Each structure stands twice: as structure tokens, then as C-alpha cells.
């Protein structure tokens, strides 16, 4: 492999890292439900990823790798703060801003309730389900990102979805009924 392709590889990884900013933020927010904290996590993760871009041999695997860095940043931050987010805190954050015209909209309310249900999950389950659902990560990528075996990815996902189905299926039913009524 020539120097040119080595150089090109690092640049490709860096480009990929920069492109994953929105995905990282979405996932970071879904993990901690705090915009400021998510922002800090993403900033830190991107900084680390760019600094270490040369370590990654395969630009195709950037996604799993950056999510792993993000998960590590979250772990470090939690260690430092020693406070796994409390539910009350999450709820406060969800509703603290008060209703804006946007939030008056029913779909916002549903989004908030879905986020609450996600926030109630243990962190491990929350991480798996958000990587799979929000970023379309494969189970293998999730395993790589969180440094857990695929069997664990599947069992955490299973438990997360069971809990979410319990909370959200009635909500979906309610919503579908409202829609039907408004059509009639």
C-alpha cells in the first residue's frame, strides 16, 4: 500500500466522522435526554475520533467505531459525575421549556412520551435500541460499538422492545382511534 492511499484513508475516515455529526447527536440525545450534555458528548467524541482517525484501518467501519467512542465518552462522563440520570430529571428536562406552539401539537406530545419511555429503560437497553432504531445499525455494529457480544445485543433489544411495547402500543392505539374519529 502506497503513501498516497494511506493518506487518502485517513482523509476518508475524517470525512466520514464529520458526516456522522447529526447521527451522533441524535443518539447522544436519546441516551442522556439532555441537549447540552449530548452536545458536549458529540463534541468530545468527534474530537477523539478525528485525533485517532489514522488508527482505523477500514473507512467502512467508521460508524461502529464512532459510536463506540461516543459510548466511552458517556461512560467517562458518568464516572466523573457519578450520577446516572434520574427519571425526575429527565421529565423535568422534557417539560421544562414550557409549551411552545410546536409542542401544543399532538405529535410533539407523543414524541415526548416515547422519549420518556426510552428514558425509563436501563442504559444498556437504551443504547442498543437507539442505535438499532435511530441509526439503523446492524446488530454486529452495535456489538462492536458497545463492546458486547451479539447475543447480548439481541437479548437487550428484546427486553427493551418488550418494555416499549407495553408503554407505547396503547398510545399508538389511542392515536389511531383519534385519527379514525377525525376522518369519520
Amino acid at each position, binding site marked *: 500500500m502506497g503513501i498516497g492511499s494511506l493518506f487518502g484513508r485517513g482523509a476518508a475516515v475524517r470525512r466520514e466522522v464529520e458526516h456522522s455529526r447529526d447521527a451522533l447527536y441524535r443518539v447522544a440525545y436519546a441516551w442522556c435526554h439532555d441537549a447540552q450534555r449530548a452536545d458536549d458528548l458529540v463534541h468530545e467524541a468527534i474530537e477523539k475520533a478525528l485525533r485517532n482517525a489514522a488508527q482505523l484501518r477500514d473507512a467502512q467501519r467508521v460508524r461502529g467505531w464512532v459510536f463506540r467512542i461516543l459510548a466511552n465518552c458517556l461512560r467517562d462522563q458518568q464516572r466523573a459525575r457519578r450520577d446516572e440520570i434520574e427519571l425526575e430529571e429527565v421529565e423535568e428536562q422534557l417539560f421544562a421549556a414550557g409549551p411552545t406552539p410546536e409542542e401544543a401539537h399532538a405529535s410533539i406530545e407523543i414524541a415526548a412520551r416515547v422519549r420518556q419511555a426510552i428514558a425509563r429503560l436501563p442504559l444498556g437497553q437504551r443504547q442498543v435500541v437507539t442505535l438499532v*432504531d435511530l441509526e439503523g445499525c446492524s446488530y454486529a455494529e452495535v456489538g462492536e460499538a458497545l463492546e458486547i457480544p451479539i447475543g447480548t445485543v439481541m437479548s437487550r433489544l428484546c427486553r427493551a422492545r418488550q418494555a416499549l411495547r407495553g408503554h407505547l402500543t396503547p398510545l399508538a392505539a389511542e392515536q389511531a382511534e383519534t385519527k379514525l374519529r377525525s376522518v369519520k
Partner: protein
Amino acid sequence: MSEEPGISEEMQNAFVDGELDAAEWARVAQAMGRDEQLRRSLCEVRTVKEMVQHAYATPPAGARRAGRGAFAAGGWAIAASVLFALGGWFSHAWWAKAPELDPASAYTLGRFAASVDQNLVLVHISNGERESLGRALDEVEDLLRAARDSGRAIRVEIVANRQGIDLLRAGVSPHEARLAALRASYANLELVACGQTMQRLGERGERVNLLPGIEVAPSALDEVVRRLQEGWVYVRA
């Protein structure tokens, strides 16, 4: 949650997440055809997945990020309405998550021609990109040629839906001439379009003229389930 034996919750998740290989995927798709409980359960998983996607489509912006985005209306509502009107199940776009052709699996067409004595092969195409359609036709042609060379009486059917239906549309297909030549050489190649995709295009005001001699199935899913029940091998191109 399902009465179907052997379709565990983990497998249902993997089905919805597109994590199954072609053989496992086909098994769930088949079971789905006869087990309403399983359909409902899969639909719930799908609904929850779409609700989660919706909830974080535009997360509140942090300090470094500009502005607060507008919230998009939830696509999950579509899945929710399917959930509560299961008659509409077959219209739901499950196809997006069918397994990709894995080059290492026995379901790769090239390997089929050489090593598998399956004579009924259904190829499902849902991607409309010129190159991927071209590749699918290459593989189908290899398969047909190899079978002819070895004297095997094979039948191959291409079923196309979503963007893949463009392959079969007169004046739209990027491979119209090639398809005509293939059909002229191989009478054992059948082409089937998804009726539901055609209807959807029609509703959007697009005129759908199919190439001559193409059959229309009620939907691609109906066709796949029917063929699987008849013992065909399912390959996703």
C-alpha cells in the same frame, strides 16, 4: 407472543431490523402468511420502532447547534393504523428490510447455478438503480445459461416492486432491450409486477405501462408467499 412455533421474539426483532439471512427471512415471511398473531406481533414491533424514530427525528438542539427544528409528522402513524386494521397488513412496506443477497450464502445466484439443484427460483427486485438492476439481470442470465448448458429444466421468476418496478415499465426501464432479448432466448423466465406498487404509482398520477407479456400479482408479498408455499427458492437481488 406468537402462536407460531419457532419464531421467537428475538427472531421477530431480527426480521423487523433486517438481520435475518434469506432462509430465515423466508421462514418468517411464510409463517406470517398463516399466523395472524405473529403478524400482529411483528406489526407492534414495527410500530414501536417507527415511534422511536419519530421521537428523535429532530432532537432539541444543544448550545452549539443552531435553532430548533420543526418536528416532522410521524411515519409511525401509518404503521399504527395498519396495526389496528390488519386487513391492510399486506400493503405495509416490509420489503425494505428483506435480507440483502449475501455473497457468502447459498442464496447467491451464481452459486446456485453451479451447486444447487433447485429448479424453481424466485428473484425479488425492489431497487430501481440502473446498476443494481443490471447486476441482477447479469446474475439471472448466468443462472439461466448455466441451467441450459447442464440440461436442467429450471424456472426463474423475477418479481419487481417499489422502485424495482421500473425495470418492467415501457419507456422507463433502463434495460428494455436486454430484457426483450433475455425473454426471447429463455421461455422459462417469467416477469411479474407488484399490483400494489402500480396502484400506488397510479394514485400519485404516474402512468404505468408495463412491457409486453408481464404478469401482475396482487402484491409482491402475495407472490413471494405463494411461491414459497409452492416450494420455490426465494432470492433477494
